[in-house]
């Protein structure tokens, strides 16, 4: 950060505090912008599909605006110094997601297979629930350091959440991946919530243990090699993530948790060797599991030869074959640089999960490379604000928690967009805020809530001068 040396021959720096303005009005202006863009998109979709401005324009605009307004007022009241960008960026993504889900609702093809029709109103309801959780998080979590008390409770909670889909009768395999549970008529993806709880556990655990992990090491070929017994925690997390991969057959969840741990370990200890170990271990684990677990193996095959998979699916070959990935790649390709325009693409050919896991393909086709880059940049900005919050936080727990949450967010965006674009094998996770799905939207709003709370604490100026009780109570009698 700064050289604070006292040596008279060196350049010297002074460090002073900059009083942070609260930036709430900036947030409000950006928030209005972030609500207007989806309304514009909504009108655009209606004009393209039905030749008229959709009748629901006012109610959708008002609904999104109302939710954003409530969130803004709560931030203004309970976290006045919070980061001004997190809320508008998340609102914009959520709004664009709503519009594209509504656009896919209009597709006759998706309506015919029950994948669309009434998804947008549902998503608006989930958004409301997400904002409600965001509000609750901001009101009841006055100080993020309280979470530190629940380090080991968080560990147990996260493990339970991760194992829930494996409970017979509760778990629900969806096309091979067992990451869903059924409660009544709802289906929930507990992994989405587990990522927040797990970040709390990792932050609390690493804060205590990081000295042992960082200092006790030998130097070998420019790398710090940790002692054998210090490898324990990373091995345990690795084994758990491999077990998730084997039993829930979901590469995304597994990669997300192991990756988040490695990122936090690196940030906590400043040792590059952890990243090297982490990459080697995850590569070995993924290759090992893919070679004997049929579902994972099949996903890898579909990733390597999407065209072959498409032909098998079309010819009705035995086994589960999906043309989704090839259709998504065609969607990206036909979008080109500037896209086909909202409502004028054919991404509904993806059929299954076109509005959840594969929603990015619709963005790619209808907004083109230019629009997709803007969307990915908005994700990047959210992550950047999270990392900036971690840098500014004054307590190590807050630093680690902020970096863990933004790291998990970044990994999820990478895993999903990489899967849809054919860079890595496809997983069962969803794009945060854009994709249709209650668990995802609600959990990510809670994640943004926690980040806003940490950023408020980090940017709050030093407390006002308090009168010194000693000076007031004591009367000094001078002779």
């Amino acid at each position, binding site marked *: 950060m700064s050289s604070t040396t006292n040596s008279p021959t060196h350049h010297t720096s002074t*460090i002073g505090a900059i009083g942070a303005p609260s930036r709430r009005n900036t947030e409000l202006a950006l928030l209005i912008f972030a609500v207007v863009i989806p309304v514009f998109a909504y009108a*655009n979709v209606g004009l393209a599909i039905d030749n008229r401005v959709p009748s629901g324009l006012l109610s959708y605009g008002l609904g999104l605006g109302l939710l954003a307004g409530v969130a803004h007022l709560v931030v203004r009241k309970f976290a006045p110094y919070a980061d001004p960008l997190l809320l508008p960026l998340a609102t914009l993504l959520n709004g664009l997601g709503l519009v594209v889900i509504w656009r896919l609702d209009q597709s006759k093809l998706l309506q015919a297979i029950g994948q669309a029709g009434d998804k947008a109103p549902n998503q608006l309801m989930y958004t409301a629930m997400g904002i409600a959780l965001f509000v609750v998080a901001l009101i009841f979590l006055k100080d993020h350091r309280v979470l530190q008390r629940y380090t080991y409770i968080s560990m147990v909670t996260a493990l339970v959440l991760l194992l829930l889909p494996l409970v017979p009768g509760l778990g629900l395999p969806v096309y091979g991946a067992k990451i869903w549970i059924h409660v009544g008529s709802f289906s929930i993806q507990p992994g989405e919530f587990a990522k927040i709880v797990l970040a709390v556990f990792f932050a609390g655990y690493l804060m205590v243990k990081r000295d042992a992990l960082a200092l006790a090491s030998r130097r070998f070929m420019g790398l710090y090699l940790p002692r054998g017994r210090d490898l324990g925690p990373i091995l345990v997390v690795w084994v758990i993530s491999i077990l998730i991969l084997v039993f829930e057959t979901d590469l995304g969840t597994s990669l997300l948790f192991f990756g988040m741990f490695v990122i936090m370990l690196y940030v906590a200890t400043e040792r590059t060797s952890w990243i090297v170990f982490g990459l080697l271990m995850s590569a070995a684990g993924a290759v090992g599991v893919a070679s004997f677990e049929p579902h994972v193996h099949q996903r890898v095959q579909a990733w390597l030869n999407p065209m072959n998979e498409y032909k098998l699916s079309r010819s009705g070959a035995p086994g589960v074959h999906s043309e989704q990935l090839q259709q998504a790649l065609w969607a990206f390709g036909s979008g080109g640089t500037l896209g086909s325009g909202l409502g004028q693409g054919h991404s509904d050919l993806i059929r299954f999960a076109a509005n959840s896991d594969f929603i990015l393909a619709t963005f790619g086709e209808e907004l083109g490379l230019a629009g997709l880059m803007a969307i990915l940049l908005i994700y990047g900005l959210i992550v950047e604000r999270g990392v900036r919050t971690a840098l500014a936080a004054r307590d190590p727990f807050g630093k680690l928690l902020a970096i863990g949450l933004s790291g998990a967010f970044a990994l999820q965006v990478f895993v999903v967009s990489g899967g849809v674009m054919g860079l890595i094998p496809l997983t069962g996770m969803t794009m945060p805020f854009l994709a249709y799905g209650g668990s995802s939207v609600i959990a990510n709003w809670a994640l943004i809530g926690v980040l806003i709370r940490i950023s408020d604490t980090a940017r709050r100026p030093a407390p006002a001068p308090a009168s010194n009780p000693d000076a007031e109570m004591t009367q000094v009698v001078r002779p």
Partner: protein
Amino acid sequence: MSELTLTVMRLGFLAVLWLFVIVAVQVIRSDLFGTRVTQRGARRDAGRPQQAARQAAPPQQRGQQGGGRQRRNAPTKLVVTEGTLTGTTVALQGQTITLGRAHDSTIVLDDDYASSRHARIYPDRDGQWIVEDLGSTNGTYLDRSRLTTPTPIPLGAPIRIGKTVIELRK
């Protein structure tokens, strides 16, 4: 809807989307907070750092206590110079600063050698800043000596708590 209108809307939407991204980046550009580092250059007299520091560029007289009680050489901030929190500053505005591993400390130390309520730094009636060890296990050191009583802090003297070193600066 005519082809032209739809094309205009398509390009217009992309433009608006990018405008949002650019505005957001502009907000980040103007969103400076935290610590400000000012390079002063190497114009100090060798061997007299303390003296030179007093003569150097006029300090920002921020956070002054009223009533003219503030002495001319009073420190205005506390700077962490070693340890995990290196670079952290706290403005000295007459408030008591607590140091320790407890979560409610002003500076939360993440250090196995620090006690939960390790030390505090406060101004006495004359505005002189005092450091007091709060019965810590491993002690608080001013320069090389372990503190036993509340002690006034000279400007720029290192206070060591475990692996963390802090100083008061102008």
